[in-house]
C-alpha cells in the first residue's frame, strides 16, 4: 500500500518538474553566481530593492531614470561657441503649457507674456559648417554642408515619421492615417527661426516637447535643415562664397554665417 502512495507522489513530482522545464518566457533561466550579475554601483534601469541578500525597502521599485534637478547645466567641453549654444534656453514656456504639455515643477512665463511671439526675434545662432575634400591627383574639391548633413540624420530619426522625409507633412503616420494635421513646411515660410526652435523645444499644439530627445545644438541644426525644405538654395550661399576662392586664407572648417554671403577675405 505504501508503494501506491509513493508511486503516485513520484509521478506527481516528476510531472511538476517536467512542467517547469518547458520554456517560460517570463523566466530568464538559471544564472551562475548571481552576485556577479548585480552591480553594486548604480546602473540604469536596475531595481536596487535587493542588495547582497538584504531587502532595501526604500530603494525598491524606485525610479532609476531620474530627471536632473531644475537648472542643471550639462557639461559640453570648453569650446565657448559650443557652450554658449548649449546654455539653458532663455525663454520660459508659455503659461498654458502647464496643462497643455504637462510642464509642472518648472517656472513658466506669466500669463500676460506670450513667449512664443517673443521668440520670433531669435536668430539661429548656429553657423553652418562645411567640409571639403580634394580629389586625389586633381585640384577638384567637393564641398559638403556638414550642418545640413547631420540635420538630415537628425530629421530622419526624430521628425520624418510625422513630417515626412520631404518635410511636406506626409510621413508614414500620416499616410496610414494614424495621425492627422501635420503641416507642410512649405506653408510655414513666415515662421521665424526662433519660433521654430521654440516649437521643437517646448512643443506646439499636438506636438510634444522634444527637449528630452535632442539638445539645443541639435534643434538649431534641425532649424537649418527645415529651412532647406522651404528654400532649395538655403545654405548654398556660404558654399558659393567659398567656391570662389576656397584656399584663400580662411579655414574652411570655421564657416561664415549662411545669411551673409560675403566671400571670405
Amino acid at each position: 500500500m505504501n508503494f501506491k502512495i509513493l508511486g503516485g507522489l513520484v509521478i506527481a513530482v516528476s510531472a511538476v518538474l517536467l512542467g517547469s522545464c518547458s520554456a517560460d518566457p517570463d523566466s530568464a533561466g538559471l544564472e551562475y553566481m548571481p552576485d556577479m550579475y548585480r552591480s553594486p554601483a548604480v546602473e540604469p534601469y536596475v531595481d536596487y530593492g535587493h542588495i547582497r541578500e538584504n531587502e532595501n525597502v526604500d530603494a525598491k521599485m524606485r525610479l532609476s531614470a531620474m530627471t536632473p534637478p531644475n537648472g542643471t547645466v550639462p557639461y559640453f567641453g570648453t569650446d565657448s561657441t559650443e557652450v554658449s549654444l548649449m546654455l539653458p534656453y532663455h525663454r520660459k514656456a508659455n503659461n498654458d503649457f502647464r496643462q497643455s504639455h504637462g510642464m509642472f515643477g518648472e517656472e513658466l512665463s506669466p500669463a500676460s507674456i506670450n513667449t512664443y511671439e517673443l521668440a520670433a526675434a531669435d536668430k539661429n545662432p548656429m553657423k553652418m559648417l562645411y567640409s571639403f575634400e580634394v580629389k586625389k591627383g586633381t585640384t577638384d574639391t567637393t564641398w559638403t554642408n556638414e550642418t545640413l548633413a547631420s540635420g538630415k540624420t537628425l530629421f530622419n530619426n526624430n521628425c520624418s515619421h510625422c513630417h515626412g522625409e520631404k518635410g511636406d507633412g506626409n510621413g508614414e503616420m500620416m499616410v496610414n492615417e494614424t495621425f492627422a494635421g501635420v503641416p507642410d513646411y512649405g506653408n510655414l515660410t513666415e515662421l521665424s527661426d526662433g519660433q521654430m526652435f521654440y516649437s521643437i523645444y517646448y512643443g506646439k499644439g499636438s506636438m510634444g516637447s522634444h527637449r528630452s530627445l535632442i539638445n539645443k545644438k541639435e534643434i538649431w541644426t534641425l532649424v537649418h535643415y527645415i529651412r532647406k525644405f522651404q528654400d532649395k538654395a538655403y545654405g548654398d550661399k556660404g558654399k558659393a562664397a567659398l567656391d570662389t576662392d576656397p584656399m584663400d586664407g580662411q579655414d574652411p572648417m570655421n564657416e561664415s554665417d549662411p545669411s551673409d554671403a560675403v566671400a571670405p577675405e
Partner: protein
Amino acid sequence: MKISSSQMFRNLNKWRLSALTILLLAGAFNSQAQGGDLFKAKCATCHKVFDDMTGPKLYGVRDRWEEGGAGEEVIIQWVRNQDVAAAMNAFANERISWSGSAMTKFGNQLSDEEIISILNWVDEQVVATANNVGPEGVIGGEGDSEESGLDWIWYVVGGLFVVIILSVGGVRRQLKSADAEASGGTFNASMSYSDEFKQWAWINKKYVGFGGLIIVVGVIVTLFLGLYSIGVVEGYQPSQPIAFPHDVHSGLNGIDCKYCHNSVTESKSAGLPTVNVCMNCHKQIKGEGEQVAQIQKIYDAAGWDGMKYTNVTKPIIWNKVHVLPDHVYFNHKQHVGVGGVDCAQCHGDMTKMNETAKVRTSEELNAVKENIEGEINFTKPTLTMGWCIECHDQKEISVGPINTKDQGKNGYYNEIHKRLLSGDKALYSEYLEDNKVTVKELGGWECAKCHY
C-alpha cells in the same frame, strides 16, 4: 429695429445655407472628399471632430454658434481672422478666451465654399470608436481563462491515468491470487511489488540492463545540457505592464528605433522612452478596441485626463530584458555610433514583432538582412561571451560610418586603420589574408576591452 435686422440677417443666412446645401448635394461626393482633405490639411493640427484638443471640437459647431447668436458668416470670418469676427459678434468675442493659444488666421487661404465644405464634412462624421471597445475586450478575457482552464484539465487527466494504472495493478494481483488458488498452488501473498519487480527483472535481465544503460546515459546528457543552459537567456521575454506592439510603431508607422530609444547614440544604455515621448503621439492617438485600455495606462502615467495634464503621475514599471553580468562592460554608443551596427543585428527585426522586447535566438539574428550582408553568422546563444566574440571576429570595420567624414572626426579608428594600411607590410598582408579588417584585428578580442 435691432432685432428685426438681425432676424433678417439670419433669414438671409439660412437662405444662403440652403442654397449652398443644394449646390453641395449636386456635387456631393466631390465636396465631401474635399472637406475631409481640407480638414486634415488645415484644421487637424489643432482640432478634432469629437474631442477638444488645442482647439475646441468641431462637431456641431454651427449649431452651437447658432444658439449663441452667431451665424455661419461669423464662423467664416473667424477662420479668416478671429479678431474681426470678435468685433462683429458678441458670442465670438466670448469664444476668444476659450484657450490661451490663438487660432491661426487663415486669411484668404480658404474660400467660403471650402470652409463650408469642411463644416459639412465634420457634421457628417459618425462616432465610430465607442462600438468597438466592448466586445473585443471581452473576447480577450475569455481567451485567457480558456488557456488556464486547459492547463487544469491536463492535471485532472494525468491524475485519472494514475488512478486507472494503480487500480488495474490491484485487479491484476487479485486475479493472480485467484488463479493460483484455483490451480491448487499457493500464492505468495507476502510478496511485495518490489519483489515481484525483481523477479520480473531477473527473468528479462538483458532488456532491463540495456534499458537501464540508456536511462543512465540519458540522465547524464540531460544533466550536462542543463548545466550548459545556465546563464543562457535566449528567448527571455518578461511580461510587461503595457502590451507594446513594436511592429505597429516601428513597422507600420515607420518610427525610427532611435526616436524612442534615443540615448543609444549618446550613452551606454539605449534608454527606455520616457512617458512624454509616448505622449508626443498618444496625446492624439487614443486607439481602438483593445488598444484603448493599454493606451489609458500611458495617460495614467502621464497624468493626462483627455483634455489637460493633471500633474498626478504614476511611473510605469517595465521589466528589464537584456541583463548583462556586472563583469561585462557593454556600450551602445560605441556599437551604434562608431561601429555602425544596426539595431536589428543584435535585437532582431522589431518591425515585424507584435510584442514587447525579447532576447532573440541566434537563429533569428542570422536571418536579419544586415547580418547576411555583413556575413555575420552566429552559432552561440545570444548574450553569451561566445556570441560577442563571434561577431567581433566576423564584423568588418571598413564598412559602416567610421570611414565617412561625419563620424570619423575624432580620427581614432581612422588612425589605426591608416597605420594598418601603410605601416608594417608583413602584418598588413597577414590581416589581408581574408581581404578584410575585422574588429578582432583592431583589438576587439582583448580581454580588457570588455572586462575591467
